């Protein structure tokens, strides 16, 4: 009897979180999933469409191209915005004057996508642009970057990394700074080299942070929308479109809310499959 009472009051601690999330996220999610089975152009009542929208997600060439671009974003993020910051954090950890570096890398993370786009458009512009003008001083000429369909996705991934790198760098640095030195030193005395110490001892100790970083990176890169949209609307044409942009275009440009919703659901399931391991894993066992 007493035990049951204790469990119920324990749950009270979780109720506020549940209520807020229910109102602002779960209601829209249910609504959107339901819309995925409909055809709705907003101004006329919705019509039942069964699974036809979901089928379209996997059979339309433009959407498959969007999937390809999304995968580039995910890979780019994991390599340059997760692994790379970890490496830099390890370097920074060996350096005394690190605050100025921390700040330089983190300040881009504080900017909104709108502002980042304004800054980068002016930096990469072919007319009175910072980069072009700098190269001009050395007599070097280049082609317009943002409208070049071959490379603009990678350029924009660069902009994204510019913003996202700092956050993960700081998080990893925090983790590294507070790792107790004894186990590492003990291992080194026992003959382990720095690389082994890093992978066998330091990395596992970083798990609470690295799981957070990886999960966050996967979630944010799969639903990448702001940067390619604000910089070039997923163009030219649809060349640099990501799945989230496809979602947006079907819903808000072509008013096919049903197809847009289906894309959203597919994105979410993809994210779920990719990241659930990182969300749930914490380390050996769990606190009782």
């Amino acid at each position: 009897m007493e035990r049951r009472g204790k469990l119920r009051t324990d749950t009270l601690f979780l109720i506020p979180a549940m209520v807020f999330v229910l109102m602002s996220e779960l209601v829209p999610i249910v609504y959107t999933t339901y819309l995925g089975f409909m055809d709705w152009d907003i101004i006329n009542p919705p019509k039942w469409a069964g699974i036809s929208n979901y089928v379209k997600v996997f059979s339309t060439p433009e959407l498959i191209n969007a999937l390809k671009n999304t995968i580039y974003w995910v890979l780019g993020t994991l390599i340059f915005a997760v692994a790379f910051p970890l490496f830099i954090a390890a370097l920074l950890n060996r350096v005394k004057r690190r605050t100025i570096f921390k700040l330089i890398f983190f300040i881009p993370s504080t900017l909104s996508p709108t502002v980042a786009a304004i800054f980068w458009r002016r930096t990469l512009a072919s007319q009175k642009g910072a980069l072009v003008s700098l190269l001009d001083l050395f007599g070097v000429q280049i082609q317009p970057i943002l409208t070049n369909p071959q490379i603009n996705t990678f350029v924009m991934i660069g902009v994204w990394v510019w913003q996202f790198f700092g956050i993960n760098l700081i998080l990893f640095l925090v983790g590294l700074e507070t790792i107790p030195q004894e186990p590492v030193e003990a291992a080194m005395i026992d003959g382990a080299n720095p690389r082994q110490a890093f992978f066998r001892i330091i990395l596992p100790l970083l798990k609470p942070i690295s799981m957070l970083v990886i999960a966050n990176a996967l979630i944010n890169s799969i639903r990448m929308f702001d940067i390619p949209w604000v910089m070039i609307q997923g163009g030219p044409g649809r060349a640099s479109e990501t799945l989230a942009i496809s979602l947006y275009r079907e819903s808000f440009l072509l008013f096919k809310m049903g197809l847009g919703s289906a894309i959203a659901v597919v994105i979410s399931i993809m994210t779920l499959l990719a990241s659930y391991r990182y969300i749930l894993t914490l380390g050996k066992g769990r606190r009782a």
Partner: protein
Amino acid sequence: MKRYMHFDKALIYSFLIILSLIWIFPLVSMIIVIFKSPDEFNSLHYWVLPPIKNILKNIGSNIAYAWVKAKIGMNFINSLIFAFSAGVGSAFIASMGGYALVHLKIKRPQSWFFGIFIGNLFPFQMFLIPLYLFLNKLGLYDTRTGLIIVYVGICVPFALFVYRNYAYTLPGEIFDAAKVDGAGKWKSFLKIFLPMSKPAFAVVFIFQFIWTWNDLLFGLILTERYRPIMTALSKLQGARGGVPVTILIAGALIASIPTIIVLLSLQKFFVRGFTLTAGK
């Protein structure tokens, strides 16, 4: 051995400096722009500076013009309210949840966590119309309350993720000891968990303040009278007109200063935590 260490350090420093130069290049480029007046920007080469006495004058007039033209005043205040509420609100709610999930007896804590976190997996654009309709039904459309609820709600899942992971690094013995001393759950939470979880608070507050401050879409759709600051920037650059580049960039810089300040003030609280104590 010492010589090897020195060479090592020099290499690291050089590498870091080159990387920092790349990172800071766009920001430096933007500062150059606001040093100039619109005419100077058009006529001079990008990297040629105007006469020194003009620079301060230009910065002042670019910023003043951007502030006035975009009517940033009220939006600035709105964003402060929203971002602060979201940061503190989501942190507090998540601290309760993180504490409970790890240090209290919850049945199936993974499911709870998952159920709360799953909201974050969804692309946010799809929330716009349902939330708009939902807030209207509740009569909370175009109110500060409605928007705060939405912002806090969206910030809670990540905040919970942070707090849960952090709570895991606090040894359970501390709370067991408190229980032996007769402290109740709520007291343990307030007097032990909260003070000890300052690093988690710093992380959550910084991230969620920044995210909420930088929001564009929700502030655009869910309110008309209480618009946040990023929507004000669009007044400076539209398809049917816009201000000269120097003023646009000045506006973007003004809009970005508070988040930079928040970062600078709180980054020293990232002191400990987020690692598993060895041997557990």
